[in-house]
């Protein structure tokens, strides 16, 4: 039985997605290089890494603002809406599928449809990432770009240090998300089909 193809990813979303992916890579690599820079150890020259990290961060902010606006205008935001009743149960069902069902060939509990682009686990992680982690990393990033806007001292510790601690922690969380996200994209009909969808728009 051949499933009907769905046009799930419009052009704006694909462009935003791949721009985001590229920016993530630049930010993670330059961020790691800055955090672990040494007299001989840094793999990207410090000043170059700073410049690229700053530029990528500013473009990411613009791209995020674009996402928020486009998400609202296009109606894509409906896919992020959560029905609270029974959500935990649905999460557990999806989780069970990933740790057991997928190995024994069970059908997907929440297959993609015109009305449901994300399974419950995807929905939760995307909400946390897009509406929690992204604003946090952008705000703390600007705190580091303009250090004078930070509190001078918070309980005896430089305010900027708390900003950077949050920035690095959220950055780490987003890096982990990206790796898991890439792996979960291999759960399509074929290993590469989900990646292809994000290029063509058709699922």
């Amino acid at each position, binding site marked *: 039985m051949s499933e009907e193809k769905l046009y799930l990813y419009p052009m704006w979303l694909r462009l935003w997605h791949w721009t985001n992916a590229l920016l993530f890579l630049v930010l993670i690599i330059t961020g790691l290089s*800055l*955090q*672990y*820079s*040494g*007299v001989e*150890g*840094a793999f990207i*020259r*410090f*000043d170059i890494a*700073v*410049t690229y990290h700053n530029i990528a961060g500013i473009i990411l902010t613009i791209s995020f603002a674009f996402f928020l606006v486009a998400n609202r205008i296009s109606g894509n935001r409906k896919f992020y809406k959560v029905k609270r009743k029974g959500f935990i149960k649905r999460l557990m069902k999806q989780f069970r599928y*990933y740790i057991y069902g*997928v*190995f*024994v*060939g069970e059908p997907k509990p929440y297959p993609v449809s015109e009305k449901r682009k994300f399974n419950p686990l995807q929905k939760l992680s995307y909400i946390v990432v897009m509406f929690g982690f992204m604003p946090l990393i952008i705000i703390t990033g600007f705190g580091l770009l303009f*250090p*004078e806007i930070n509190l001078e*001292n918070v309980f*005896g*510790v*430089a305010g*900027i*240090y708390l*900003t*950077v*601690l949050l920035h*690095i*922690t959220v950055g*780490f969380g987003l890096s*982990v998300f990206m*790796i*898991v996200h890439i*792996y979960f994209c*291999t759960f399509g009909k074929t290993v590469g089909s989900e990646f292809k969808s994000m290029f063509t728009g058709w699922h």
Partner: protein
Amino acid sequence: MLIQKLAAVMILVVLIVATAFTQEEAEEERVYDYAEQNHQCLKCHGHKTFHYFNENVGQEIRERMNPYYIIDSVEFYSSNHWNFSCLDCHSYEYETTFPHPNELRMEPLPVCLDCHGGDDTYEDRNWEQIDEEFQKSVHSTKHGADFKCSMCHNPHSYKINARTNENIKETIQYDNGICLSCHADINKYQLIVDFTNPNVLETHSWLPNQALHWQNVRCIECHVEINENMLVAHNVQPKEKAVRKCVECHSENSILLASLYKHQVKESRSELGFFNAAILNNSYIIGANRNYYLNVISLVFFGLVLGGIGIHAIIRIIKK
């Protein structure tokens, strides 16, 4: 009974607090031994104008004081030399003659080591070593005897800072002010050279976030050769040898730990807490501040995620 006990405790607390305050005030109270004597000088040299009776014309004359000879008495009495008599350094004849004879100005003034050389009271300041370092510095090798300690350390106003001030930002501002008093002021700069002072804004234009750097590090961090035995090294290097590599500061073994934060580092460096904890209370330096626990936790977590994905993928392949 309970009320009486409470009252007794309160009285005790009040007494302890009051004693503490009194002690603090007593410690801060200074007795200015030469205030009266110095007033004879400062009544003219502490003001923009001075007056005297001109016998030739038979009237009181008011004149402007040469601005370079005005001493800010508030600054002087809060400086390191606050309990000095003016006559400790300047000729006694100034006290008895007016107008002051011109020859007095030609007399050599004492240099710092005249008093501080072999000074046991402040042995930890390493005066002799400061002098040795200074003799090697570009200030001395280029300008010789023209460059005196007093060009940076104004004896009328100099206050020790790095050792006593817990506010690093104030120390930075104060110390940089010393460098800029020549390097951003052509009048003072040309006391020892004929050419025009290079514009420090332009010569440092390569430095990213210039203003931020200048607010948070001292000029000497990049321009002085670090000496482990001295709190403030004095061997100012030629510009070609200045630090230009970002990672000299922005790395785990930041040179700032041996210079700007040297005093705090001795007390607070710990391998199990925050790396470079000394910097934490004042600012954040990318690459120099690292958190041991966060590093370990993130590595373990990252390993678990990658391991989990690997195992999951292998089982998927096997079960396919």
